[in-house]
């Protein structure tokens, strides 16, 4: 899908190169196959002693060179447009970490693994990583850029196609590299404003089902298993209603308040044996979403 006018331009260029390659491949294969058939060996054959032809060498050097230069210039033009965001582009801060995307809007709203932008408004992403190199890739927009731990990098686009688009990590970053995807929603103005206010939570979905959905969409699944096996974070199985040992030596009961605090202010209490690496979801999850997650965790069985 072409998510922007730029994407459409890239596709025109892409198809030009495709047809060029088809032409040259057929030319090459054609000469080879023709030669094999027309000049198949027969006993007694004597072949001409052609050693070289400078005019031909010149021709088949210059013509490809000219074509290469045309493609080079075309590529530079497209690249320059993709590399330089317009001055009025809305800025979204992107933080990539193993293996989750965090987005922060100018008004302080935050989102995890899910991105909402307004149609026909250019948006630029100012990106950094908290650990290794990642890459923000939006195929429908035909743009990507690596995300580094020691500096900011940027991409931008002007979305013209309403609806859902996929984005993913395109720089290998370890075990969860292929799980590090998300959805970009291109909304009309009204829906976009509504999302900024409410976070898009469906008020009619039962809480535990909501929690199960958020488990995937907010990236909890990257670090918390449901089967009891520890990962980057402790498993959710059997957590609720049992004592938990913390890294500072205390033991606390995992009641609703513990779950709520652990979700929103993750660095307040760290379970023994784990590192303090969980993103802070305060301001990211709406109240109902937190309720949904707590409800879902309560449904997960004993250890």
């Amino acid at each position, binding site marked *: 899908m072409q998510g922007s006018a730029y994407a459409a331009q*890239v596709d025109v*260029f*892409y198809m030009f*190169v495709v047809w*060029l*390659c088809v032409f040259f*491949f057929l030319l090459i294969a054609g*000469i080879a196959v023709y*030669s*094999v058939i027309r*000049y*198949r*060996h027969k006993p007694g*054959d*004597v*072949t*001409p*002693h*052609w*050693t*070289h*032809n400078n005019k031909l*060498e010149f021709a*088949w*050097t210059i013509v*490809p060179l000219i074509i*290469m230069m045309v*493609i*080079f210039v*075309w*590529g*530079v033009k*497209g*690249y320059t447009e*993709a590399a330089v965001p317009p001055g009025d582009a809305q800025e979204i801060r992107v933080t990539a970490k193993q293996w989750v995307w965090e987005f922060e809007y100018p008004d302080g709203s935050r989102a995890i693994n899910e991105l909402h932008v307004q149609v026909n408004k250019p948006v630029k992403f100012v990106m950094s990583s908290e*650990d*290794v*190199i990642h*890459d923000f*890739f939006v*195929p*429908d927009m*035909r*743009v*990507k*850029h*690596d995300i*580094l*731990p*020691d*500096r900011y990098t940027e991409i931008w686009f002007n979305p013209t196609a309403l609806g859902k688009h996929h984005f*993913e990590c*395109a*720089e*290998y*970053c*370890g075990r*969860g*590299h*292929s799980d590090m995807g998300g959805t970009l929603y291109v909304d009309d103005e009204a829906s976009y404003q509504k999302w900024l206010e409410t976070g898009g939570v469906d008020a009619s979905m039962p809480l535990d089902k909501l929690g199960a959905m958020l488990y995937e969409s907010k990236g909890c699944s990257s670090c918390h298993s449901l089967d009891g096996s520890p990962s980057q974070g402790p498993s959710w199985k059997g957590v609720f209603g049992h004592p938990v040992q913390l890294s500072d030596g205390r033991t606390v009961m995992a009641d609703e308040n513990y779950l709520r605090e652990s979700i929103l202010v993750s660095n307040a209490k760290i379970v023994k044996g784990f590192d303090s690496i969980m993103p802070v979801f305060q301001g990211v999850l709406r109240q109902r979403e937190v309720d949904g997650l707590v409800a879902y965790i309560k449904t997960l069985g004993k250890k």
Partner: protein
Amino acid sequence: MADVISAPFHAGTTPVERRNYLTEPKGLWSWLATVDHKRIGIMYLISVMAFFLVGGIFALLIRLSLFDPSHMIFGHKMLDAETYNKVFTMHGVIMVFLFIIPSIPAALGNFVLPMMLGAKDVAFPRLNLASFYIYWTGAALAMVAIVTGGVDTGWTFYTPYSTSTQTSVAWMAMGIFIAGFSSIFTGLNFIATIHKLRAPGMGWFDMPLFCWGMYATALMQVLATPVLAITLLLMTIERLFRIGIFDASLGGDPVLFQHFFWFYSHPAVYIMIVPGMAIVSEIIPVFSRKTIFGYRMIAFSSIGIALIGFLVWGHHMFVAGQSQTAVVVFSFLTFIVAIPSAIKVWNWLATMYHGSISLETPMLYAISFILLFAIGGLTGVFLGALSLDVHLTDTYFVVAHFHYVMMGGTVVAFLGGLHYWWPKITGRMYNERLGQIAAALVFIGFNATFFPQFIMGGQGMPRRYYNYLPQFQPMHAFSTVGSWIIGAGLFLTLGYLLASLRKPYDAPDNPWGGKTMEWQTQSPPLTENFEVQPVATHGPYDFFPVGTH
């Protein structure tokens, strides 16, 4: 001469037990301590084929795991995510460093190069043997890395992931560091050999084009590999001692690693392809029974690729965080480096045109090379174009591109060369019918495996992905089946090549009617190659010199 050209290719001569380099001296020690370039070539050949097998099995495992997003096939769950990441890393490392880079130079080149020059051996035979043992020392450390838990960084070892992951990176890096010296010394040996050990009468422009290709490759091996050495050393020391060069948290620069790494690894890909082109330049004229068209252009284009190849490394890093100026310069140079490769293709086609072509297995592989390398090279054009690369880099498009050039190119050429020189090396003919069938299986299987990957990449399927969106499943499944067809072709090849060794010597001294010096002596050759020092009295491709018709 007329009798050589018109004699059918399978002229059987009465098997004659002549003394040759295989039969004497005898004994295992005489092989392990040999300084005979031919025996060293065979030891390398067995070694690289073994690693090709290991790397190939890893490839089959990768494709089996990707058959379906559930990672199930035929009711079996294949690799889990962590193992998958290790397997694709080790597939890459083994294939690049332990198979492809040494394959044509060290296995075939060692055997054939001195003979083509009319020499008794390479310039430094003892260094040649040392190279072999250095290669195995490096390979041994790489195997230690594999058995101590493997490596999961990808063959490109990007920091900071490679300096922080808990897998056996240091062992692997040191293994490749050591194996790199094997490559350097082979290159050093070949340059000296080509400069000083050509037969009397053989000027630079009288030697076979294979030698030009090996010369260009050797220049790259000597000049580029030391940079890999220091890069791996720095990365390992960063891991162990945290010296602060690549680690951002210490003030280091992860993109600096990429510059260092690709400064070697781009020439490395030319180290891989130029020998393949060199073999094709040998096979095409012989099986077209026509002199090579554009000898000097082909020779110079090898050198051109070697030189310009040092200037394009940044095209692996268009989205890595370089300045816009750098990116534009690298794109420009990338388009320039495409031209010499294209020149070769035109000259090969002009050689075939109006030739007298027969399709024995070596020629089938040479023609496969032209077609598959054409696709690989043309798709490189997409990746050199900045705006297209921004979309396509780090997707399956790149995976398809480099497999077309490395496998469809180099491996196919290697197989072509192996079949071409098999009678010379072993004194036996392989089964021609099976050879043609296997070549067809490899060609068909290869396209089935990798062509869909261009399409997937264009649609946004990223590389090094264990999990993928369901929309890509049909193409992944098709690609997996393709890999089985390649496997069938390659195992068939292994089978009939080994089977040929059980026959008595049945190969004519010159089954293909070649004009280069290795064909003007017995198959298999004497230990000293030639009974008397040959003198070059005609060109390497003088099939019908002016005045003979």
